[in-house]
């Protein structure tokens, strides 16, 4: 093997010396491949992301609901199934929420739950009964924060919240996302409020007080390892669904029997209760009758008692009389007896006085005697004493005298003198005598004579005295005898007194006795009277009692009569109810089971549709894109090879084989293509799906996109890329290499100048200036490249137009829907169960508001439209109270025929997209399902323009003829000139009304809508940017080829003295014309592409505005021209530096 290093060097040099060309091929391929692979991958990536997410959150495969709830029987049936991986019973209930009365689905959550796991976006899941985790959606997060206190309310006036859940106040503890609800704005249908769920909330399962589960969720073993979007999965789930449905219905029949039996038992109980009630009623009547009899007896008794009492009174009165007489007699007798006694007493006292006086006289006499007697006795005694004393002294003196005086001591003498100082005799004192004796002056005889004379005088005094005393004693005795006599009569008087006292005592005793007797009589009498009084008051009491009894009886009677009516009515009603219940029981049907698989969940399907729509877009857009890229690559490669004829010829002449020569071009093309493709794949698989998915994140609550690599798209894009470069190279080379080196080395004859068609139109040709002619001729000289340029530019322009068109189509919806189609501003959902006062208040609010231009009562319900092969659609039905007025609120006009419809005349009018989806026309029948699962079939009277959502407008006549229920208007459409302030005001006013459930404003819907449109916008921006990028590269590349092909010509005019801008314009004039032609062609092509893309990209519940706005064309034109200008500037720089000498030197 020979070394051919020179050859490889040459290849490398070729690449480095023609960087612009190399990179333009690289970028073309990069854009083509990247765009193709990226867009193709987006759809599958989205599906994979969703599928992974559902697997991760353990989303159910099968969801079972029933109008009877789900009991142990159903659970048991499923629990036995082998194929089931997990089975869980959950609770849920639709309630009103918060001040705005949003309609939310309250879902019970248990830590044990494995299925439909929530993703916690903020905070946590509820851990206590009064905690709630809320939907992480804008509706909620714009109003509530963690820690907020929220209230829920029963959605149904007829039922209490406590029948379903035990708590009504909750603290928000978290925000979560459920795999069951992946869109941001829709939570499905409900039977409360205005029929649409706004959000969901998660509370502990224990909070629910329901007897039966509301939902059973199932996952299957078979689903573990397959994509939920695979056909096998869908088929398998359908099989399970089809198998379980009849099985469940069997269980349901059993449950029905049970329910019937239970109900019959209840009816029986009801009957018993009624009987009891009846019995009670008759008992009460019986009691009343008895009471009446008793009352009458009482009356009689009372009369008798009255008579007795009368008698008793008379008797008592009599006895009282007797008693008074007795007392009088007794008192008179007593006075008489007392008087007698007093007389006797007086007599006795008189005699006693006389005796006493006598006694007193005697006493006085006696007392007169006493004094002299006592004196005499006293004198006698004194005389006796003196005599004794003298006698005694005499003896002592005798003793003394026996003793001589000189023997006596002075002391003894003095004692004698002292002791006898007071003893005197006839005036001579003894002491002085003794003195004299001692002194010897007086003899003993003298003394003894003195003494004996004194004694004798004393004894004569005594005898005299004794005679006087005897006399007095005689007088006294006389007096004492008289005194004794008087005292005897006094004794007699005392005896008389005593007898009198006895008599008085007797009298007193007698009196006491009588008084006792009288008191006894009195007491008896008093007792009699007391008894009488007692009797009397008793009688009075009895009388009052009787009157009370009478009143009670009468009241009782009245009450009874009144209540008997009510009770009888109640009983009658209850009986009626029981009869009804029995009747109903007879007509009672077995529970209906609603089995839904994932593919019945509109949101999941919608997501799939969106992903598939992405894939659809990914088919048409990248194909156009890729085609252009391939076309330009082809042109570039062709040009490159043509430029190198001489080199090829030289190599060939030098003896290199064709293969060697080809190698260079293959390697060149291959390296540019491969690098471009690899970079394109790398960028395409990562960047594009992410950008697009991020846009969809506005609509969906899903985790970040799961990227993936796809061999199919990789191989396809590689194949196309390599084809467009390598096969082109091969083709061009094959042609050139066939010729001999000599021919090759000779320059390829330059394109021959030719007269062009325009020249034949002489007047026109003549009018053109020289440069225009040159340009015109040049244009037609390079027809192939002209075609390429036009195709390339038109393709890009078409892509841009389609991009903007799509944007316009989407944005247009909002304007058309809310500007042209819906002329009302708000829908007020009303509670038909509200009281008439509440309704009146509401009516006044609306009527008094001057800003409101018009209002229309409607019945609103969300229906389901189903058809195999079509995603189930929600259809909003409006039945206006006054069908003639509807066209003031909603435009009822066909979009294409401009025919207007009248609800009164045409009956049922549906919207365009619904008609298209379900393939119905005016005059066809369309069957819809109501929220209660009833079928509603209407004959389409007209199809009208509408862009967002599906609507059915029905006249009340038709509705009522089809539905047995009475039409109750539950909403009102309001029309007023929109202003934010007014809406805030209105909202305030309406929130006070109990009649109003919620108010939805078109303006806020419009805003929401615009948000969701935002996602498509981003896709569109991706399209536009990519298309613009492609336009740029295409223009650059083609211009580059043009320049290099005509470098000699350009050098010539440069040498001729053309200024730089004249040189640029010399070639660019053609480019401008080609660009303009491209734009025009692109406009046509874009229109077609737009229609095709709109068709594939359309959403089920949305009709794009199919008309393509002139601004789309304008933008595309401007963008293309901007790129053209940019390329021109780049070329200008390049041309400025063209070495004209070099170019002109060689022979071509």
């Amino acid at each position, binding site marked *: 093997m020979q070394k051919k290093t020179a050859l490889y060097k040459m290849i490398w040099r070729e690449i480095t010396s023609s960087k612009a060309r190399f990179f333009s091929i690289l970028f073309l391929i990069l854009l083509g491949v990247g765009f193709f692979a990226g867009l193709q991958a987006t759809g599958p990536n989205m599906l994979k992301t969703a599928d992974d997410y559902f697997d991760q959150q353990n989303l159910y495969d099968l969801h079972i609901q029933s109008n009877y709830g789900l009991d142990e029987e159903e659970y048991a049936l499923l629990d036995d199934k082998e194929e089931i991986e997990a089975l869980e019973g959950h609770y849920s209930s639709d309630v009103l929420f918060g001040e705005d009365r949003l309609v939310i689905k309250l879902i019970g959550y248990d830590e044990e739950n494995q299925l439909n796991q929530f993703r916690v976006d903020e905070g946590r899941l509820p851990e206590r009964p009064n905690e709630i985790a809320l939907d992480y959606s804008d509706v909620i997060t714009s109003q509530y924060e963690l820690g907020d206190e929220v209230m829920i309310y029963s959605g149904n006036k007829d039922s209490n919240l406590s029948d379903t859940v035990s708590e009504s106040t909750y603290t928000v503890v978290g925000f979560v996302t459920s795999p069951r609800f992946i869109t941001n704005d829709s939570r499905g249908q409900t039977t409360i409020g205005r029929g649409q769920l706004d959000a969901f909330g998660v509370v502990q399962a224990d909070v629910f007080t329901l007897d039966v589960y509301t939902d059973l969720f199932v996952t299957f073993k078979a689903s573990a390892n397959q994509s939920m979007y695979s056909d096998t999965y869908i088929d398998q789930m359908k099989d399970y669904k089809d198998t379980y449905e009849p099985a469940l219905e069997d269980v349901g029949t059993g449950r029905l029997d049970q329910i019937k039996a239970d109900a019959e038992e209840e009816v029986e109980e009801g009957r018993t209760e009624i009987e009891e009630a009846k019995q009670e009623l008759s008992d009460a009547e019986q009691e009343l009758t008895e009471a009446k009899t008793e009352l009458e007896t009482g009356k009689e008794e009372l009369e008798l008692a009255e008579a007795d009492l009368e008698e008793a009174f008379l008797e008592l009165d009599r006895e009282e009389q007797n008693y008074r007489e007795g007392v009088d007699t007794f008192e008179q007798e007593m006075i008489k007896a007392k008087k007698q006694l007093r007389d006797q007493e007086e007599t006795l006292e008189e005699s006693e006085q006389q005796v006493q006086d006598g006694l007193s006289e005697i006493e006085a006499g006696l007392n007169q005697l006493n004094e002299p007697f006592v004196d005499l006795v006293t004198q006698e005694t004194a005389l006796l004493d003196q005599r004794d004393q003298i006698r005694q002294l005499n003896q002592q003196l005798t003793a003394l005298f026996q003793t001589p005086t000189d023997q006596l001591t002075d002391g003894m003498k003095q004692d004698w003198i002292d002791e006898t100082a007071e003893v005197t005799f006839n005036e001579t004192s003894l002491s002085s005598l003794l003195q004299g004796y001692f002194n010897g002056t007086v003899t003993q005889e003298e003394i003894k004579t003195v003494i004996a004379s004194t004694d004798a005088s004393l004894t004569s005094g005594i005898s005299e005295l004794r005679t006087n005393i005897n006399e007095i004693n005689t007088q006294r005795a006389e007096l004492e005898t008289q005194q004794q006599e008087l005292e005897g009569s006094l004794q007699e008087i005392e005896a008389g007194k005593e007898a009198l006292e006895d008599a008085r005592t007797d009298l007193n005793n007698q009196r006491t006795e009588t008084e006792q007797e009288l008191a006894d009589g009195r007491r008896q009498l008093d007792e009699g009277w007391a008894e009488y009084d007692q009797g009397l008051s008793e009688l009075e009491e009895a009388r009052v009692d009787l009157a009370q009894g009478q009143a009670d009886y009468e009241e009782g009677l009245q009450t009874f009569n009144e209540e008997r009516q009510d009770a009888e009515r109640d009983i009658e009603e209850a009986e009626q109810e029981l009869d009804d219940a029995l009747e109903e029981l007879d007509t009672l049907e077995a529970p209906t089971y609603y089995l839904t698989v994932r593919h019945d969940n509109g949101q999941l399907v919608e997501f799939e549709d969106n992903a598939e729509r992405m894939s659809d877009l990914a088919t048409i857009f990248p194909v156009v894109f890729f085609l252009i890229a391939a076309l330009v690559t082809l042109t570039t490669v062709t040009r490159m090879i043509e430029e190198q004829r001489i080199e090829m010829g030289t190599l060939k002449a030098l003896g290199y084989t064709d293969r060697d020569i080809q190698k260079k071009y293959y390697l060149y093309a291959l390296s540019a293509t491969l690098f471009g493709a690899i970079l394109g794949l790398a960028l395409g698989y990562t960047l594009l799906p992410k950008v697009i998915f991020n846009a969809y994140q506005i609509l969906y609550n899903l985790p970040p996109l799961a990227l993936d690599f796809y061999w199919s798209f990789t191989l396809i894009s590689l194949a196309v890329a390599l084809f467009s470069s390598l096969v082109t190279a091969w083709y061009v080379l094959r042609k050139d290499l066939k010729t001999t080196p000599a021919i090759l080395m000779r320059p390829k004859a330059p394109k021959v100048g030719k007269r062009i068609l325009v020249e034949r139109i002489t007047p026109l040709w003549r009018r053109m200036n020289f*440069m225009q002619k040159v340009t015109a001729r040049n244009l037609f000289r390079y027809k192939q490249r002209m075609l390429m340029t036009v195709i390339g530019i038109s393709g890009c322009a078409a892509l841009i137009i389609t991009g903007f068109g799509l944007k316009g189509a989407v944005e247009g919806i909002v304007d058309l829907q809310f500007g042209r189609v819906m002329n009302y501003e708000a829908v007020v959902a009303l509670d038909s169960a509200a009281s008439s006062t509440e309704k009146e208040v509401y009516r006044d609010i609306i009527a008094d508001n001057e800003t409101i231009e018009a209002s229309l009562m409607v019945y609103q319900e969300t229906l389901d439209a189903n058809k195999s092969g079509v995603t189930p659609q929600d259809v909003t039905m409006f039945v206006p109270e006054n069908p003639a007025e509807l066209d003031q609120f909603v435009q009822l006009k066909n979009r294409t025929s401009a025919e207007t419809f009248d609800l009164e005349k045409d009956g049922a009018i549906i919207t365009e997209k619904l008609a298209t989806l379900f393939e119905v026309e005016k005059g066809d029948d369309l069957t819809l399902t109501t929220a209660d699962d009833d079928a509603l079939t209407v004959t389409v009277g007209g199809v009208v323009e509408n862009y967002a959502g599906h609507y059915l407008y029905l006249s009340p006549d038709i509705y009522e003829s089809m539905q047995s229920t009475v039409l109750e208007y539950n909403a009102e459409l309001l029309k007023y000139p929109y202003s934010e302030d007014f809406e805030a005001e209105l909202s305030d006013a309406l929130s006070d009304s109990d009649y109003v459930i919620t108010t939805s404003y078109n303006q806020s819907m419009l805003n929401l809508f615009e948000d969701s449109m935002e996602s498509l916008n981003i896709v569109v921006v991706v399209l536009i940017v990519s298309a613009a990028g492609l336009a740029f590269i295409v223009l650059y590349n083609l211009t580059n080829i043009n320049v290099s092909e005509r470098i000699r010509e350009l050098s010539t005019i440069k*040498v001729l*003295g*053309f*200024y730089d801008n004249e040189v640029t314009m010399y070639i660019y004039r053609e480019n401008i014309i080609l660009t303009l032609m491209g734009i025009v062609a692109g406009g046509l092509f874009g229109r077609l592409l737009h229609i095709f893309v709109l068709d594939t990209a359309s959403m089920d519940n949305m009709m794009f505005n199919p008309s393509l706005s002139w601004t789309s064309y304008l933008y595309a034109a401007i963008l293309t021209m901007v790129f053209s200008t940019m390329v021109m500037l780049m070329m200008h720089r390049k041309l400025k530096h063209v070495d004209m000498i070099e170019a002109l*030197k*060689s022979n071509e």
Partner: protein
Amino acid sequence: MSYVRVVDEFKRYTMGENTIVANNGISFDVEQGQFAVILGPSGAGKSTVLNILGGMDSPDEGHIYVENNDISQYSKKQLTTYRRDDVGFVFQFYNLVPNLTARENIELASQISPDALDVDEVMESVGLTDRRDNFPAQLSGGEQQRVAIARALAKNPKLLLCDEPTGALDIETGKQILRLLQKTARDFNTTVIVITHNGQIAPMADRVIYIHDAKVKEIVENPRPRSVDEIEW
């Protein structure tokens, strides 16, 4: 003062690490209305001189005066204007625009030139009136070169520069061209400078400048130039 004066002109090209001196101090004069020939072997630097004279390149050193204007100091724009107004070029390979007819090729030049001559007159003077609407591919080499000369002349240039104008032509046709060029110098009082490696042309020039090894070897005044017909190849 001569009409064209080249004074000490140097031109060097850098090719990688090597510096090639194309013109190494070239000086010569050409008078107005003269038919001058610059003669020298291939690679001697003749074309460089012509390019610089024609305003397609600028010298590294030295001055070039044309009608007393120092074009060596001209900016690119001034050079373009100079080419546009004062210079006519004739190339060895004609360099006609293939997409334009003979007349249009001439118009291409006359359209931009202020003193342009009447296109048809010029065509007549080069004897191409009946070929006016033919495309270059429909013309013979001589005819093409005559168109090229007519294109150069139509501007009514002060200076007509010809780079090997006969190089690609047979002798007879070459003679025709040379005759035309000589006649032009005489009739229009245009200064014509022809570069060639063909020494046989030298006798018909008013002045012959010999260039060898990037230097002027000799300048020969020819007081009585011969006519083309007198020259034998």
